[in-house]
């Protein structure tokens, strides 16, 4: 179909101008999928073997545009990158990415800032241009933005001090109460759960309130959220400390009373309220045709 169509177009355009025909043909060829194109137009593809690859590498090192200084920065970046990732993976569940790994991220961030700054190095070169912007892939940037995304998404910034030296006081306090709660859980876990519900209620309440305060102030990171979620799950699901539904009778009684009221209302207004009547008015009509009865006569 397409081919015929193109032929037709080519033919048609031939009548007009050569330039247009040429352009049209080329663009049509380019538009065609590979499967159509490859048999008739073989793509230029040199035979690559191991030897030539090595050659390529050596030439690259010799004529590399990356200076020694930048190379070192890149190495440092790599090491810190590995360290951060190594820290992240074990901290995935339960989530402790902020409290465990904030230090390595801070280091990584510093290095990346160095790389991406426009200050000139000792040799007068700017590593930002050579490392970050030289190719289409921009691997260093890509790598860092991945981890930066994780950092942003986990809101870790809310849990560490602005200079990156340690966790905030709020976070530490929360963690303390969190530990306290779990100590309490441990203490009563063996026996009856109702015992646990009663005795740990105050610490759990404290933790809950602290959490909702932090939620309001927006000073939370993923660690705290996850810890709280897990605690709540334990509290409600494992230990079954949620409120029981035990007021069925009064609720049903009150609602059925309420539902009964409209029935009384409508019945009483049906029985006691006088029905509204309408007074009919005789329209003035030309006498002989007034009612439809006559119309029906006329029809039949």
């Amino acid at each position, binding site marked *: 179909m397409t081919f015929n169509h193109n032929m037709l177009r080519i033919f048609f355009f031939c009548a007009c101008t050569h330039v247009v025909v040429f352009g049209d043909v080329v663009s049509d060829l380019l538009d065609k999928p590979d499967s159509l194109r490859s048999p008739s137009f073989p793509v230029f593809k040199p035979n690559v073997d191991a030897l030539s690859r090595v050659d390529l590498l050596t030439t690259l090192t010799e004529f590399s545009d990356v200076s020694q200084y930048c190379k070192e920065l890149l190495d440092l970046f790599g090491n810190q990158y590995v360290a951060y990732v190594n820290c992240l993976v074990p901290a995935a569940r339960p989530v402790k990415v902020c409290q465990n790994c904030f230090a390595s991220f801070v280091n990584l961030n510093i290095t990346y800032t160095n790389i991406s700054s426009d200050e000139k190095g000792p040799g007068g070169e700017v590593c930002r241009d050579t490392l970050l912007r030289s190719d289409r892939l921009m691997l260093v940037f890509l790598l860092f933005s991945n981890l930066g995304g994780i950092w942003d998404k986990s809101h870790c910034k809310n849990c560490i001090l602005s200079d990156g030296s340690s966790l905030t006081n709020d976070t530490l306090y929360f963690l303390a109460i969190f530990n306290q709660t779990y100590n309490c859980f441990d203490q009563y876990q063996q026996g009856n759960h109702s015992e646990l519900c009663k005795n740990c209620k105050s610490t759990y309440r404290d933790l809950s309130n602290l959490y909702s305060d932090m939620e309001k102030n927006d000073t939370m990171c993923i660690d705290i959220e996850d810890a709280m979620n897990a605690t709540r799950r334990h509290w409600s699901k494992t230990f079954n400390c949620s409120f029981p*539904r035990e007021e069925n009778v009064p*609720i049903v009684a009150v609602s059925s009373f309420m539902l009964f009221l409209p029935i009384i209302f409508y019945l009483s207004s049906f029985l006691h309220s006088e029905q509204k009547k*309408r007074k009919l008015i*005789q329209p003035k009509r030309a006498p002989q045709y007034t*009612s439809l009865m006559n119309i029906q006569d006329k029809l039949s």
Partner: protein
Amino acid sequence: MANITKKVSWSSRADESASSASTGVGEGTPLLNGSEGPRFSRQHAGEGSVFQIGRLTTVELEEKMTADEDLIRAQTREIPHNEKLLSLKYEGLDYDNIENQLFLEEERRMSHMGFQCLEISRWVVCGLIGFLTGLIACFIDIAVENLAGLKYEVIKRNIENFTETGGLSISLILWGGFNAAVVMMGSILVAFFEPIAGGSGIPQIKCYLNGVKIPRVVRLKTLIVKVVGVICSVVGGLAVGKEGPMIHSGAVVAAGVSQGRSTSLKKDFKMFEYFRRDTEKRDFVSAGAAAGVSAAFGAPVGGVLFSLEEGASFWNQMLTWRIFFASMVSTFTLNFFLSVYNKKTGDLSNPGLINFGRFESESVEYYFYEIPLFIAMGALGGLLGALFNVLNYWLTIFRIRYVHRPCLQVMEAMLVAAVTATVSFTMIYFSNDCQPLAPENNEEYPLQLFCSDGEYNAMATAFFNTPERSVRSLFHNQPGSYNPLTLGLFTLTYFFLACWTYGLAVSAGVFIPSLLIGAAWGRLCGILLASFSSNSSLWADPGKYALIGAAAQLGGIVRMTLSLTVIMVEATGNVTYGLPIMLVLMTAKIVGDYFIEGLYDIHIKLQSVPFLHWEAPATSHWLTAREVMSSPVTCLNRIENVGTIVDTLSNTSTNHNGFPVVAHTLGNDEPGKLCGLILRSQLIVLLKHKVFVELARSRLTHRKLQLKDFRDAYPRFPPIQSIHVSQDERECMMDLTEFMNPTPYTVPQDTSLPRVFKLFRALGLRHLVVVDNENRVVGLVTRKDLARYHMGKHGLEELQLAQT
């Protein structure tokens, strides 16, 4: 709605037996006065008295009846209210220009500049209409948001307390009591002060734009009651929305602004005096209705189309453009003030009162194979809508017949409010559907109740919220935020609650409840589809089905087509859904119309309004003007005795508004030749200013009456009783030549009903004189004469005239 007609209570219990006997007759035979057969057959026999034209009144006719016929008539006189009545209290609007000599003089005096000023002031008025309507919408929105927020905050805290300590039944009573108290305020306003402000107001505006003058519908008092009432009913937790009343509010604003004065406040700004007549006012009211829609839904184009579809029969390109201007200004104003309120001044991307939220690009996708599903959902929407309308129809009839006293209406509204709260509470209490709190579904008032910590009750997101927020969460919450069981129960209860609520003596709209019901079952459909199919990613988004369901349900209830499609498209900000929404609305309308009419049409019928549809009823071509017209006609002479005029006007049995003016006739039986038409309102102004021939002769300096004098009295012409005419003045004569419309539209006697109808509908006539071939008046066709005929189940039926 139902409460318009409640001031009078007719019968005492004593004669109930008599009237109940006649009930069967009245309802069984839709034909007019079936029991009067004998009289007519007798008159048939007497060939001689074919026409009895002249100044015969009904009273005179009645005198000719024999005693036993009188008895029969007495029995059929009163019947229970039903849909096959036309009320006498509704009059037509004068859309047709009265080209009398005063008008011609004024036009001659007016310069070219003057006409241009008029055109400019039309634009100014439209801008003002849009601005004020937007402001009102903004006020309602903010008031509802804050008050409802306060209410839910208090109740939420209360419920949280009692969940822990026990005693939730107290929360239930608190909730119910609070709702009932707030609704009581709104309902008292409506029932005791301004019954016309009840309901959504769309039927009333529809009638107004159709050319029916509904008493008190566009007054300032109505507007205030409407606005306060709608805030009360939404805050009171009824199953209602605040969008319908916006349309009414916009119309009132338009009618007020365009007149440049307020009769209620007795303040005249001496502006826009030219617009003080029905023709201009009606154009502005259609602009106001459009501005109301546009503010309510953030849909300017939808607003214009709404006015086009529901109302105005008189459109030209400039008017449409002006109306569009008013709509845009209204949306813009609302946007701007909401942005100030939300502390994002200058951000004009806030949509209307109801914010459907934007549909993200992935969830917008739909495929070819889903179209049949959408159509099936449209059919379901039509069915459910028809069911809703049938139930509401019976309920409204019951209300008109039995719940017509204001105190009963207030009680009913309170009961509904309390029961709504009770049902909601019970549903929430017994629901086991717990969903985790997540940042993306930002519930305003999550209720935990018996759910685990960190989870909330999913039923509460639907019930413990203002209806429009519920709509939004149904559209946009993540797949899996609702159990199918929750949605099913919610649909069921809300359906009956909404049906029960519409028609109460509160001011409230039906748009949002319909959308909510539809969104709930639509979402249910989406969830079920996803669970049936193996490849769940195909049907991933239940929000899409919620939207389609909402459109189907709304279309099934109100049966709007073009404007609703555009409103939905604009409100969701998504043209991609245009095709499915259109298909769904089409199907819903077709299916629904098979069973019963749209909700607004039902209510118009039940109010006995002489509403003219687009076309005359089918199979009515054999009816001629002679059969349709009222006859004999009360005519006036060109130079008429003042006493005669006063007597004619004060005759309580005939409240005619238009009187053909005839050349002087000698005998009473001979019909006069038509030379003009004069309106009751004009006669009253003339009497008030004592424009008598004798006085004009004696007083040379007598100021000539101008068109301005008629405009000043518009629109509340005093009743004839308030005008004092002394015995001497009764002997004077009045020359009507200058004031009457010298070229009224006339038709010959044999014109068919559809022809008459077309003239009436297209020209917006109020009176159409029927003349014989010598231009003698033989009858008069008015709106009520045409609206009497309608297609019933058994062919053409005739409605009865009744006093309400």
